[in-house]
């Protein structure tokens, strides 16, 4: 899935610029779900966002399609700041940015037939007429690999994989440029994940789609993404091309995350020594640690990590990291 050279120089599809999203709690506390995250998503690429629960990855995804308003920073769509647009302009722009959620069942209205569900976005956008909407919906279902008779069925009659295909078909009906895929295969059995990931790849090629692929599953993100951003407690720790990030990471957190993944390999092929065991759990986003957010679990943490937020440094071409001690060779030695 190499991105062609001339596309790379085109304007980014989406830009997050110092994106900050805080939620106020009763009692005056603030959840700092996302705290100053910047990245650009390039046309035609799959941009992976990986992180554990509480990292803010889902919040970023929702903000990217306008479901959440940034409390700080901005999001630019094709260079335009949304807050400067009129509501009708925003509406027209918004259709280019779709999202598909983790739970394929919860995303479908149980009282609507599949065909009705798939037509709904076009009705909201006032596209075409009833006949053309029906035809577009049927075409989209077919493109998502579903037989035509599915349209008359209800969500409970479908398997998880089929329902996720319906959600994909529905997102396609309004011809988006960009789709946020939030844990779209997490609820599916291993045996059908491959087919759904293949479908995403096919559609990307056919329609020139750009994806933000949000997942906790390293093997999924490594497979489908061109570039990966690693989030921890509301911040980006590392950002770079998928190969280098998943094979020679720069950040101690990325390294630990990769090593924690259980490998389905025979015992003699698993290197037990590779394991970097993190102690403790991700701290509360209400009172994140000072300085580097990862320092409380980092095996290489020093005094400076509590005092200064690490600079965002480009240590390899297009490969960025937020760690005081990482070098071009990789993260500091865990000792």
């Amino acid at each position: 899935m190499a991105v062609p050279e001339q596309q790379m120089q085109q304007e980014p599809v989406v830009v997050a610029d110092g994106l900050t999203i805080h939620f106020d709690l009763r009692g005056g506390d603030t959840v700092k779900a996302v705290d100053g995250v910047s990245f650009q998503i390039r046309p035609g690429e799959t941009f992976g966002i990986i992180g554990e629960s509480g990292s803010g990855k889902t919040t970023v995804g929702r903000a990217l399609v306008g479901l959440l308003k940034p409390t700080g920073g901005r999001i630019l769509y094709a260079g335009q700041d949304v807050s400067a647009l009129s509501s009708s302009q925003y509406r027209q722009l918004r259709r280019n940015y779709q999202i598909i959620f983790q739970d394929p069942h919860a995303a479908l209205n149980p009282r609507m037939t599949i065909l009705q569900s798939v037509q709904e976005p076009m009705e909201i956008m006032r596209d075409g007429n009833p006949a053309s909407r029906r035809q577009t919906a049927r075409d989209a279902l077919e493109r998502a690999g579903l037989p035509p008779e599915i349209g008359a069925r209800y969500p409970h009659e479908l398997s998880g994989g089929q329902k996720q295909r319906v959600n994909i078909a529905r997102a396609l009906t309004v011809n988006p440029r960009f789709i946020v895929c939030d844990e779209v295969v997490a609820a599916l059995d291993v045996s059908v994940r491959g087919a759904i990931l293949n479908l995403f790849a096919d559609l990307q090629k056919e329609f020139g789609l750009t994806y933000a692929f949000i997942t906790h599953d390293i093997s999924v993100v490594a497979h489908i993404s061109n570039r990966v951003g690693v989030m921890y407690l509301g911040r980006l720790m590392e950002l770079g091309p998928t190969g280098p990030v998943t094979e020679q990471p720069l950040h101690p957190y990325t390294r630990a995350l990769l090593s924690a993944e259980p490998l389905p390999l025979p015992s003699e092929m698993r290197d037990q020594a590779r394991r970097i065991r993190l102690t403790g759990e991700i701290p509360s986003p209400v009172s994140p640690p000072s300085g580097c957010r990862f320092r409380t679990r980092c095996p290489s943490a020093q005094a400076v990590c509590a005092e200064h937020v690490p600079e965002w440094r480009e240590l390899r071409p297009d490969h960025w990291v937020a760690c005081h001690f990482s070098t071009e060779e990789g993260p500091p030695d865990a000792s």
Partner: protein
Amino acid sequence: MALRDTVDEAALGGSLTGQAGGSPTVKPDAAEALLSVEDLSIGFRGRDGDTSVTRKVSFFVRPGERVGVVGESGCGKTVTGLSLLRLLPERTARIDGRILFDGRDLSTLPMREMRKIRGRDISMIFQEPMSALDPVFTIGQQLSETLLAHFDMSRKEARERSIQALTEVGIPLPERRYDEYPHQFSGGMRQRVMIAMALICKPRLIVADEPTTALDVTVQAQIIDLLCQLSDDTGTALLFITHDLGVVAETCSRMLTMYAGEVVEDAAVDEALRRPGHPYTSGLLRSLPRLSERGERLPSIPGRVPSPNAMPEGCRFRDRCPYARPGCEDYQPMVTDRRGRHVRCWRVDELALPGAVD
């Protein structure tokens, strides 16, 4: 059981230690197995007649052994696990077959006797710790209750033992956390509490149903280490139900693959990963994204698990199986192949199926 004579004593002796690696899958005699499930068929009564969920499931667990149960959702893994502790609804569940634990058949045991076994000899860890913990009682009360139900001891002793159990599972400040409520614990800490509760009476078998699925990968790694270390230290056997083949590879020595309510393969984990005997096991392993080159097409298993009301005759996997041939529509018994794998496929000796290693 005649098979037992064909393995040498050294191999059997090695398998009893429960170490990861290649323990033989030869069926031990009743005296040797801690748990022996024989022809367990589970069905549920409904308005439209009975629905069969598992068919003639047979397997065994040796003392201290860690056995993984894998398969897609809807294959009967969880129902089988629950049936071992008789946790299925008595009024609607129909159970045939035998569940021999330590020589006693749990499937016919009076409930009064069964309660003495639950939590004491066999305990269970569930996927969602919050639904297994009572929100209105403190962690300490719930831990002590387990002890007081099975042992004649004072509340003070129960408290001390509970705090010790919290320490063993790595909960910081156990004296203070003893008096806290479940909502004050994080997901990982709650799962540690569940493990403490499961281990507190030093049971001989723990049934763990997706115990790490709801956890983050870095916390999952901690919990897996903890379970293995505690099982090594106490000699507790583990039946590990999971859809995650990586988790099985890292924890278990033997693996049962279930499909559509049947055990289709019973083999040492390393053997099953390298040379799976059943096309379904092979299909699951090949579906893992990590085995494919980045950006390449991923293999998957077409179709879905048939619903209990529409089970095909003969091999239940044949509609999805790339190796199906005439002959697969016949009933498939479990066969033992040249390698000693137990596989529910008549073609096992002629098929060389790809596994997790190329």
